[in-house]
């Protein structure tokens, strides 16, 4: 259930330096009790901006919360300049990934800024005795982050770059063809999700993004149609099962 609480900024450091948008790791200290599943998000209030900014949960400790975000606009730019202080967060938002369906050897597929929530998912799957593997897709070498985090968990990682400047040249789906898996979890830009949806040979879950008003199901700002009815990405999602997704063109 959602909670509003205040978090102290522990650190807020850049992970990449690509001019297309720097990626930052923000570590916060506060009450994380409302966060119950990987794949959930928090909604961050920033001074002078009206709407909160939704950011997925990357990692969780007893009293710490890690968010990884890309600087894409006014809000994230302002957030990246904060090195200390207190942030007003709504926590425990979204349904999150269901790990009960993962089977023994799920593959986790992340594209760009969709990579962060897969880290807490990987840790959760490991704690349940499962053997996840990871595929991370980026445009080019300068944009890569997160590989070392997964390697430190002892998880096999394949990295793809579109321009071939690092790892496998191509898309996450090129690496997926060469991977043995019994289930998949994906998070990334919509073109990637569509490609994964087409080429995955098993069931799976994917996490979606949309501009949100409230983030907790009140405003109907982020609705989408699915095969199981209309859903609010913020509350009934952001995670959907492969079988219920309805792509609109």
């Amino acid at each position, binding site marked *: 259930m959602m909670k509003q609480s205040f978090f102290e900024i522990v650190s807020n450091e850049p992970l990449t330096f690509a001019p297309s948008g720097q990626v930052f790791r923000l570590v916060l200290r506060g009450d994380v009790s409302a966060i119950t599943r990987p794949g959930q998000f928090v909604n961050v209030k920033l001074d002078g901006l*009206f*709407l909160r900014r939704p950011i997925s949960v990357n990692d969780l400790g007893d009293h710490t919360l890690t968010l990884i975000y890309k600087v894409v606009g006014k809000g994230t730019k302002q957030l990246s300049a904060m090195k200390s202080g207190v942030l007003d967060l709504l926590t425990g938002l979204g349904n999150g990934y269901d790990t009960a369906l993962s089977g023994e050897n799920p593959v986790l597929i992340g594209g760009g800024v969709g990579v962060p929530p897969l880290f807490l998912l990987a840790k959760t799957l490991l704690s349940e005795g499962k053997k996840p593997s990871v595929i991370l897709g980026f445009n080019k070498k300068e944009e890569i982050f997160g590989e070392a985090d997964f390697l430190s968990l002892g998880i096999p990682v394949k990295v793809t770059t579109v321009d071939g400047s690092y790892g496998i040249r191509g898309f996450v789906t090129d690496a997926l063809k060469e991977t043995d898996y019994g289930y998949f979890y994906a998070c990334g830009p919509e073109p990637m999700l569509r490609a994964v949806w087409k080429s995955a040979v098993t069931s799976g879950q994917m996490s979606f993004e949309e501009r949100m*008003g409230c983030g907790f*199901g*009140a405003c*109907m*700002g982020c609705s989408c149609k699915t095969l199981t009815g209309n859903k609010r990405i913020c509350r009934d999602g952001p995670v959907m099962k492969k079988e219920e997704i309805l792509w609109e063109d």
Partner: protein
Amino acid sequence: MGRLNVSLCGIPLDNPVIPASGTFGFGYEFAELYDINVLGTFSFKGTTRDPRFGNPTPRIAECTSGMINAVGLQNPGVEKVLSDELPKLKAVFHKPVMANVSGFSVDDYAYTVEKLDAEEQIGWFEVNVSCPNVHGGGMSFGTDPRAAAEVTAAVRRVTKKPVILKLSPNVTDIVSIALACEEAGADGISLINTLLGMRIDLKRRKPVIANKMGGFSGPAILPVALRMVYQVSSAVKIPVVGMGGVSSAYDVIEMMMAGASAVEIGAANLVDPFVCRNIIRDLPSVMDELRIDSLRDIIGAAHGC
């Protein structure tokens, strides 16, 4: 009577704080956060005859001190509201509730109100003739005095409950529309709905909102809302519900001094889900500070100066 008690079209309210339609669903999401029975009442999600998915996304844009939405009256339709939503509402809210209704023809409005009328918990109908996000309906009824009067009269015929017409600010002369509604039998007027607005994505060189335009709300519109509440409450004899940019106990009092008998809070709920509870908590101390004994004493206080 307590200091916060007011009355709206003959129905007593513990306080004048009313979450506005479209920002509070059917109440049960917020009931997970706090006991929503502290509210005066709330206006539930705009309901239409048929189910509506609404507009394509993106439906939301950030603005300075506000936001634009183009949801487009997404709702499950009156049948599902009766069978699925109102039972859930009843489980968490035990006061008379305000039913917000919209339509695309005069018959639509009357049909939906008539269907809902048997629900005992519905205290008032708030008839939305001001949604800027749908074509061929909504706002078009609220921008013409004759059309607004026609909707009012049609709804009036199918219910004995108080009928409050929710008006659009996107007009040249809001007073003439309010007067037309009053003459056609309205028991109250609520205003303002959102102001038609737009944002453009500078990188994509396209409107941020998929529907191009949307309704602008939030603290930025408070002065416009105050002005219109003042004008309308000067002209009509029926009660006025004020809304538009209200986000604090001070704003509630300002809206009441402008002439509002009760006050709706919209966009603020979306960024601070506790805002209505907090306003109700803050009102007594703000009243002390401003030497207000009872909120009833300040309704329209700014008139006649």
